[in-house]
């Protein structure tokens, strides 16, 4: 039996009140809350062994370096990555995507094609648009269906020997749709195209096996996985990481520097210029341990139960429309009440202590497709409860009554 009471006790923020009401935090797709162990790891780092890593001969530097590299190994194991140096620490998903896009700028030619999906977050659209502008490559978009899923037939027809790269999110942040990335990857590989999967929305819900997926690049952020903000991961197959030029120049990423020529350091340091987010990296490792301690099977089962229950209850309210109704989805419900603006619903819910997201969720192409300015998005984590779903539902009813 999944014990949400003891799990909730791990999260100090869940005990607080907002606008005089107990906080009901349903904006987990934006960022997750942090358990005490992660907060403690941050405090402990700065209290006990703060030092710059990889360079110092002194004890603190060694200790910090060991912990940081230990975190890299935890990430490696968690995602079943072949080699630890295929894990590059980044400041987050957006940074990781930009590193790859920037790297491909030197590999793409005019006439090459890159494919994105219609379900992307702006951060997985704009860097590729910039890349295409720079290189003259053409950007193609996999269309979406009314259910908020990808049109896989159209995707298959889009692939050709011109296709060099495919970028798709594992799970849509705006709708919660789980994309069939196994098929997307294998089909792209049939035409020798590389694939980048944006896992920002996925990794708090499921545990991807990157070797089994055989994906070329996979990126994610720690802060959606109970870790701190400002740190994330770029996984790249060794062969690709060796092929791509470094993103930033600076300390740590060099082997030797003279004014005539600099040789770059080996992986992963080639992509980790400057002093990294040491504390963040270490806390990311702790967050991964915490999630595995709860267990992803249990997390998935509990979140699925919340999703099913919330969907059923929400649809009982007349005039509700849910966006993203594909079979495969995570615990995200994007919806609108007939003739009521999402901003208004979000404002009333906030007054009731309920945190949801409203607006276009940085995915304007999806909103344009449905011809709406935005949606209300409730996203559930493993620490949410059925009782909180009830609070949400009665809040929505209240909002509807006030706003109609």
């Amino acid at each position, binding site marked *: 039996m999944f014990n949400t009471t003891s799990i909730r006790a791990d999260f100090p923020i869940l005990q607080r009140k907002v*606008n005089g009401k107990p906080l009901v935090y349903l904006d987990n797709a934006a960022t997750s809350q942090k358990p005490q162990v992660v907060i403690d790891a941050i405090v402990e780092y700065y209290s006990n062994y703060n030092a710059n890593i990889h360079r110092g001969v002194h004890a603190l530097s060694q200790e910090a370096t060991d912990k940081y590299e230990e975190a890299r190994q935890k990430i490696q194991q968690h995602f079943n990555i072949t080699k630890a140096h295929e894990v590059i620490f980044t400041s987050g998903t957006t940074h990781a995507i930009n590193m790859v896009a920037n790297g491909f700028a030197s590999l793409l030619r005019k006439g090459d094609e890159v494919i994105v999906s219609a379900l992307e977050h702006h951060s997985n659209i704009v860097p590729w648009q910039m890349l295409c502008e720079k290189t003259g490559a053409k950007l193609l978009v996999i269309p979406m269906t009314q259910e908020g899923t990808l049109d896989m037939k159209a995707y298959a027809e889009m692939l050709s020997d011109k296709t060099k790269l495919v970028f798709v999110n594992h799970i849509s942040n705006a709708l919660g749709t789980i994309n069939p990335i196994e098929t997307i990857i294998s089909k792209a590989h049939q035409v020798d195209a590389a694939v980048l999967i944006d896992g920002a929305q996925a990794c708090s819900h499921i545990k991807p096996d990157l070797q089994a997926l055989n994906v070329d690049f996979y990126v994610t952020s720690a802060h959606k996985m109970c870790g701190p903000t400002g740190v994330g991961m770029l996984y790249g197959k060794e062969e690709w990481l060796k092929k791509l030029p470094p993103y930033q120049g600076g300390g740590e990423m060099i082997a030797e520097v003279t004014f005539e020529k600099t040789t770059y350091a080996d992986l992963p340091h080639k992509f980790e210029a400057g002093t990294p987010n040491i504390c963040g990296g270490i806390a990311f490792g702790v967050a991964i341990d915490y999630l595995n301690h709860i267990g992803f099977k249990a997390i998935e089962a509990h979140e699925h139960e919340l999703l099913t229950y919330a969907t059923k209850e929400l649809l009982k309210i007349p005039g509700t429309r849910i966006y993203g109704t594909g079979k495969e989805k995570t615990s995200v419900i994007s919806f609108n009440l007939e003739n*009521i*603006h*999402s*901003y*208004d619903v979000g*404002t*009333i819910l906030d*007054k009731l202590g309920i945190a949801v997201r*409203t*607006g*276009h969720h940085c995915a304007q192409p999806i909103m344009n497709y449905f011809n709406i*300015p*935005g949606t209300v998005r409730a996203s559930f984590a493993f620490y949410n409860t059925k009782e909180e779903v009830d609070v949400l539902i009665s809040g929505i009813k209240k909002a509807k009554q*006030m*706003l109609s």
Partner: protein
Amino acid sequence: MKDIQNIQQDLIEEFSLFDDWMERYEHMISLGKSLPLIDPSLKTEDKLIKGCQSKVWLHSEMEDGKVLFTADSDAIITKGIVAILVRVFSNQSPEAIVKADTDFIDEIGLKEHLSPTRANGLVSMLKQMKLYAVAYQAQLNQ
């Protein structure tokens, strides 16, 4: 016609009658329904004040030395606040609008909606009303 300060005082008294936020919001929503609506033909891109989430259209014209504002919003709570701002600033001289402060928003308990970090475009709307007034003032002084 009452001056800006009097209207602000009226609003503060009106809102002090309500015990809780829900009644205040309901009142604000009903004020939104009485907003002098912008002529639909004027709901064009150049009248649009862009907030991140809700849209606000604002139109101004000058009549007998007074600035007249009409407006609309696609979100009903935003529209309520827009109505309050129009009630305070419309039909006033440019000079009075330029000089007026907006502390009353705080006093009626709606401060959160006029925070610069709130993505509803209301701060921009207030700024735009003042800018119109400055422009009309310059016209009058020519």
